[in-house]
Structures are given as structure tokens and as C-alpha cells.
């Protein structure tokens, strides 16, 4: 496999994980604009664990997932007290706090970036990505999968039906944080260099954009969104400088034609 093709596939695998990281809270009704914060936490934790403790990158990545999940669970308490646009702004602020903190942490290189020499190859990244797809598909076949949508559709009724609304919301937020952490850890160990500047709010917005574009009504939507976002700019390479302009125009076109995302539940097609 050519180096170029492999790096595109690695990005695709990581972007799929990122898409589900944004999708899980979004299905529960949370517009999380702080996904990149958890990506950064995952990337820097994994890098620090393998650099400073000589941990093998895979267990380092798994521990980074746990750290991102724990952080997500803890910040979910204050963040889930907010709703709608306020929740989006709270996660936006979280992103700024995490990014700003890392930029000032000299132990992980601060603003000059952080090299992470221990390498995770393409097959392992792909295996993690496949595992995430399978897990998310399975999760949406459980009562939890139904409950997440129920909670975002009607909190009051979900509560009266006996569901712990806060529990389901917090689980979705935490699971999203864990996946973001995984994506960060894999990125750090595959590309062997991370920079906090990359994990800003703009990055979070891109991830949310894939998911909205693919559609949030089914588990297939984020998969499609991640694929389009990864592959389309590559296919447009021929037009060099204009490719991102064309890409952005295509996004606007898709959004205006299908505001609910490209992939919808069956019966919504007839509407």
C-alpha cells in the first residue's frame, strides 16, 4: 500500500471514531463543541504515558481513553445543567480551557508541540476503528440506544417512563469523551507528533459538521459523514487552491437540500 493511501485510510479510521465521539452526545440532544478538548486529553495523556513511563502505546492509548472518559464524566455534572445553545457554549468554553491549559504545560512541550515517538501502525488503528463501529452499532441495539433518543425527544416523558434522564445524558457525554480520547491517542501514536494548536474549537466544529452532514437519525450517518469529509478533499486535490472552497460549497449545498443529514430513517424519506 502506498504511503499516501495508507495515511488517507488512517485519517478515515480516526475520523470515523471522531464522528461517533460527536454523534453519541448529539443523539442525546447535546451539541458538544468541546470534542477536540477530549481528543487533546487523549492524545497528550497517551503521549505522556508512553514517553515518560515507557508504556507500550496500546495500553497507553487505553489508559488515555479512561482519562478522557473520567474527565468527561466529571465535567458532565456542570455542563449538563445547561441546555441547548448554553450547553454548546459551555462545551466551547471547555475546549478553550483544555487547549489553553495544554499550551501552558511545559511538561508536554507547551506551545512548541509534543513528539510521541512510540508508533501505532495502520492495522491497529483500523482494528480500533472497526471495534468502535461494531460497539456503537451494538449499543444502539440495546435499551440504552432507544433511551438516548427518547431523552432527547422528550425529557419529561422519558423521566415519567422511569428513565434516569441525567444518567442517560451523562453516559452519552462520557462515552463521546472516551471515543474522542481514543481518536486522540491513536493520532498521537500514529503521526508521532501533536500540537495543542490543532485541538481548537474549529476542529470540534468540523467533527460536528461531519455528523450533521451524514445525519444523526441512524448510526450509518456519521460513518458516511466521516468518509465524505476525509475523502472528498482528497478527490478534489486536482483543483489545488480552490479545493476547500469547492468543498465548503458542496457542504452548503448538501445541508440546504437535506437539512436532517444525508441518511434518514426510512419513513422520513416520504415526508
Amino acid at each position: 500500500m502506498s504511503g499516501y493511501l495508507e495515511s488517507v485510510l488512517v485519517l478515515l479510521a480516526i475520523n470515523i471514531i471522531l464522528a461517533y465521539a460527536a454523534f453519541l452526545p448529539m443523539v442525546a440532544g447535546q451539541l458538544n463543541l468541546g470534542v477536540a478538548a477530549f481528543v487533546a486529553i487523549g492524545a497528550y495523556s497517551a503521549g505522556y504515558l508512553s514517553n515518560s513511563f515507557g508504556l507500550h502505546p496500546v495500553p497507553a492509548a487505553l489508559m488515555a481513553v479512561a482519562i478522557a472518559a473520567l474527565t468527561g464524566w466529571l465535567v458532565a455534572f456542570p455542563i449538563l445543567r445547561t441546555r441547548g445553545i448554553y450547553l454548546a457554549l459551555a462545551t466551547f468554553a471547555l475546549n478553550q480551557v483544555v487547549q489553553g491549559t495544554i499550551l501552558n504545560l511545559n511538561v508536554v512541550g507547551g506551545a512548541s508541540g509534543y513528539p510521541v515517538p512510540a508508533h501505532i501502525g495502520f492495522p491497529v488503528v483500523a482494528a480500533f476503528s472497526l471495534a468502535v463501529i461494531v460497539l456503537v452499532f451494538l449499543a444502539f441495539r440495546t435499551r440504552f440506544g432507544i433511551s438516548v433518543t427518547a431523552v432527547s425527544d422528550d425529557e419529561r416523558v422519558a423521566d415519567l417512563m422511569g428513565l434516569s434522564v441525567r444518567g442517560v445524558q451523562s453516559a452519552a457525554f462520557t462515552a463521546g469523551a472516551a471515543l474522542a480520547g481514543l481518536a486522540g491517542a491513536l493520532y498521537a501514536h500514529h503521526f508521532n507528533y501533536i500540537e495543542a494548536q490543532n485541538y481548537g474549537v474549529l476542529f470540534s466544529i468540523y467533527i460536528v459538521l461531519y455528523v450533521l452532514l451524514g445525519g444523526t437519525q441512524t448510526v450509518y450517518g456519521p460513518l458516511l459523514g466521516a468518509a465524505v469529509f476525509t475523502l472528498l478533499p482528497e478527490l478534489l486535490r486536482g483543483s489545488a487552491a480552490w479545493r476547500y472552497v469547492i468543498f465548503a460549497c458542496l457542504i452548503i449545498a448538501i445541508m440546504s437540500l437535506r437539512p436532517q443529514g444525508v441518511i434518514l430513517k426510512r419513513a422520513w424519506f416520504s415526508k
Partner: protein
Amino acid sequence: MVLEIRSLSKSFGGLKVIDALSIGVERGERLALIGPNGAGKTTVFNLITGVYPVDAGKILLEGNDITALPSRYRIRRGLARTFQNIRLMAHLTVIENVMIAQYPRAPGAAAMLQPVGFGRANRWRAEARAALAEAGLEAYADEPAGALPYGIQKRVELVRALAAAPRVLLLDEPAAGLNAAETEALHQALEAIARRGVTLVVVEHDMQFVGRLCSRVVVLNFGCKIAECAPRDIHADGKVREAYLGAEEHAA
């Protein structure tokens, strides 16, 4: 008594919406709660199910004080309801809406992670499908609930409430917006539910419907009980006529 409220009061702002209201419901009874718009009927349901905390008074379900019990635990005690404005989860399919209400029968974290989505083999899914089939709604099982016509949604909401296996069922205007045939079908369905031993408390404006279904009527006005009688005696009650029609003018 299966359900009892004792001198319940509730104010919103300075307005007293429910004022020292007491109602007892016997097991297996079919009680109607009627009154003019704004009398506080839906508020009574909201207090019983815990949507709002009470200001004063007690709510007892099968002898247990549930006044302070968090709303989500009440359905586990056998108390289910429907809503005046249908409130199905629009983005879930019909069968998923029904399955949501099964959760209180087997709650917990392990139940949350139980797979319930694979085909017809799953016990919970099969049960929900059977309940929909019994109500003649199987054809809609896999449709998103939000896309269905009003009458169908209304029937689904009843199937959903029953999926929690309630002993007491609160129905908020079940016949509103239904045509004659649909109202008749609803009547038959509720008769069947009552025969299974489920206690029914019904808020309803259709007095003909109430007269056929219910054995007792409690009339509310401005949050107070103004009458309590058999449905057929309701027209004879002066206070009730006054509440609905205003004070009678005496001929000069």
C-alpha cells in the same frame, strides 16, 4: 384504596390552582375527573405523577406515601399515564416507543445494556409487537412515531402506557379529537383494560363517553372539588351547572 390524595394544594405564582383537594380511588374503579377548562384536572395528574412537587398534602399509592418520591420511580410502583397533547418520542419507531415503557418493569444498568434490537427473537421486542398487534397497530410498528396520524398516535400512547403493566392508569382526555368510531373503539379498549383489574382515572370532556365508562365522577372547579356523584346525576347538580354555564338568571 389504591390511590388517594389528601388535601393536596398547589399554587403557581400567586394563583392557587389546586386547593386542599382530596380524592380516593378504589381498586378496579373507573373514576372520571371533569370540570371546565382551567379547573386543574391536568395539574392533578401532574402532581400525582410527580411532574410538579406539591405545596401541601399527601399522595398515597397502594397505601404508600409517594408524595416525595422522584417522578421517575412512580411508574415502577404501578402508576402510568397518557398525555393531553400526545407525547410520543417522535424520532423513535412505534415499537421502540412501546419498549421504552417496559423499562420500569426490569430497571437497572444491566437492563440498559441488554440487547433488545435484534429481529423478532428478543423477548421484550416480541412482547411489544404482540401488544401492538392486539391493538391492531402492528402495521405501524416500525414507523417513526412522529410521522403518524393523530388517531394512530393516540392509540400507540395507550399501548405504551400499558407496556409498563400499570395497576393505576391516568388518562388525560383520551377521547379528545377522536371521531365517533374511534371513540367507540377506545371505549372497548378501556373496558378490556379495566376488566384486567387496572384502575382507571380519566380526565375527559365527552360526558357521553364518561357516562358509559365511569362509575363515579369528581367535578373540579378552580382547583376545588364541587361535586362527586354517579355520572347520571351530574346534570342535576346546581353547582356543576353553575360552573359550566354560569349562574342562572332568575326570571323577573
